[in-house]
């Protein structure tokens, strides 16, 4: 990896770190939230952007992390760290099981199968309302929202934990897509038949990619539950699967910083248009259409045309 790549990515990490002391309170909170959601988007990007697996069900992995963590904290009174790992484990397991089944299909069928799995998961949350509190969701007990003496609900620690998770995930995915494993994922995205005939077991690699992708998404969901304290069924709904797709598409699929750019852009787009009008989704929709028309490869993709080596 070139020095320029490192300086770009480490520069971004450093900038986000510094913003902790610079941003005014409101934007400080927004950026903390965006960084956690961007981790979800980066997870999605491993499957969609790098491997070409267009899933419409990633909300279930995010929600598996969120509920895995939240339910363990609520019912078993687990601490923050074990609860986070419980969420991560739930997401990895769910990704493995759904991946084994869904990856028997490809293309449009894969989209539909993942969408159906996610809907089943969502309806499952509503159905088992005794445990999950159904539509209302629940507030994560404060006892689970602290590590040692640090309260995760405080603005400072919340921001820094979001930043740490974001940074580790970004550097991790950067490493992953530069490693031989990641190169093969790109080859599968570009031409699966050819990759198979170079001797790569593409089925197993796609499963690996989906498990990594689901695991990262679940890690984000688990952190979201701990940092923001609320677990709700809406996070498992189809709109969160679509959000992940939109964030990645807007930022630039198959780029490492694209998911952050897309998430940040869309968050502020919705946020600012809400101030202007009640019909904020109309404004968001029009901007999205314009962006896809004029930047078909997303914001980072457009930059990449100028700067070819952008990962």
């Amino acid at each position, binding site marked *: 990896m070139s020095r320029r790549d490192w300086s770009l990515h480490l520069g971004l990490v450093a900038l986000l770190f510094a913003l902790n002391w610079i941003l005014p309170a409101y934007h400080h909170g927004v950026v903390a939230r965006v960084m956690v959601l961007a981790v979800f988007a980066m997870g999605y990007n491993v499957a969609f952007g790098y491997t070409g697996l267009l899933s419409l069900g990633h909300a279930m992995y995010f929600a598996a992390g969120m509920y895995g963590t939240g339910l363990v904290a609520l019912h078993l009174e687990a601490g923050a760290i074990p609860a986070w790992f419980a969420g991560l484990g739930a997401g990895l397991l769910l990704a493995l099981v759904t991946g084994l089944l869904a990856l028997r299909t490809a293309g449009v069928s894969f989209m539909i199968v993942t969408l159906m799995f996610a809907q089943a998961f969502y309806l499952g949350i509503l159905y088992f309302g005794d445990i999950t509190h159904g539509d209302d969701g629940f507030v994560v007990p404060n006892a689970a929202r602290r590590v040692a003496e640090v309260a995760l609900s405080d603005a400072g620690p919340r921001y820094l934990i979001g930043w740490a998770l974001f940074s580790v995930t970004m550097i991790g995915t950067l490493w992953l897509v530069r490693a031989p494993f990641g190169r093969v994922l790109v080859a599968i995205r*570009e031409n699966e038949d050819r990759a198979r005939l170079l001797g790569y077991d593409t089925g197993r690699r796609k499963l690996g990619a989906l498990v990594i992708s689901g695991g990262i998404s679940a890690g984000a969901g688990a952190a979201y539950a701990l940092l923001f304290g609320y677990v709700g069924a809406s996070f498992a709904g189809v709109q969160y699967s679509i959000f992940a797709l939109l964030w990645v598409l807007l930022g630039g699929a198959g780029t490492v910083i694209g998911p952050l750019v897309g998430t940040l852009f869309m968050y502020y787009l919705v946020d600012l248009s809400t101030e202007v009008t009640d019909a904020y989704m109309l404004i968001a929709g029009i901007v999205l259409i314009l962006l896809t028309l004029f930047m078909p490869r997303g914001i980072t993709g457009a930059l990449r045309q100028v700067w070819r080596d952008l990962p």
Partner: protein
Amino acid sequence: MSVILETTGLGKSFDGLRANNDISFSLPAHQIRALIGPNGAGKTTFVSMLIGRLTPTEGVIRFDGRDVTKLPAHERVKLGMAYTFQITSVFGRLSAHENVALAARRRLSDPAAVAQEVAQALGRVGLGDRADAIAGDLSYGHQRLLEIAMGLAQKPRLLILDEPTQGLAESEVESFKALIRALAAETTILLIEHNMAVVMELADHITVLNFGEILAEGSPQEIHANPAVQAAYLGTGAPDAED
């Protein structure tokens, strides 16, 4: 010479259409074998079964003495079979270097060894100076050569080339022939080819398919003189008239 590839009673039906019927075929190591036949004779069906892209309806495929009939394609490739597609199938948005590196990386883990292998394979097909080009930007002929370089970088024991000279300029065909001759020392080559000049010049041995069955086998001279082969090519002209 030891036999590297052998099929016994190999057949394939597509919904009642008999594409290949009872093909028993034997390929000795280090031979350059050409597989010819009129359009629709079942050549691509046959090699697709060899590499594992199609499952035979019946029959057995042995590679290096081992029954590979039920192995998936990627396992066969790991055993030492390589296949270049009839329709150019490179990774169009990746560089020529990365295309070949993907082929080399499956068996080499050291980046320096991969880089060396890539440089060597690209050099042998004459694309040494195009390593950084995006594969999709290369001319059609160069993409064909890139495919062959991807085959070489796998260091296969059997290289199956499906119509490799299609779309090559005459000068490129000349260097292709020299390359294949040089390769015969290190690997076995199964060549599906329409260009009869190339076939007659390169092949040690020729197998002719017609209507999904083996019509004739023999040296280029024997095939050239075979009345059944000439009859099969009637309508498209005798084989030597095709180039």
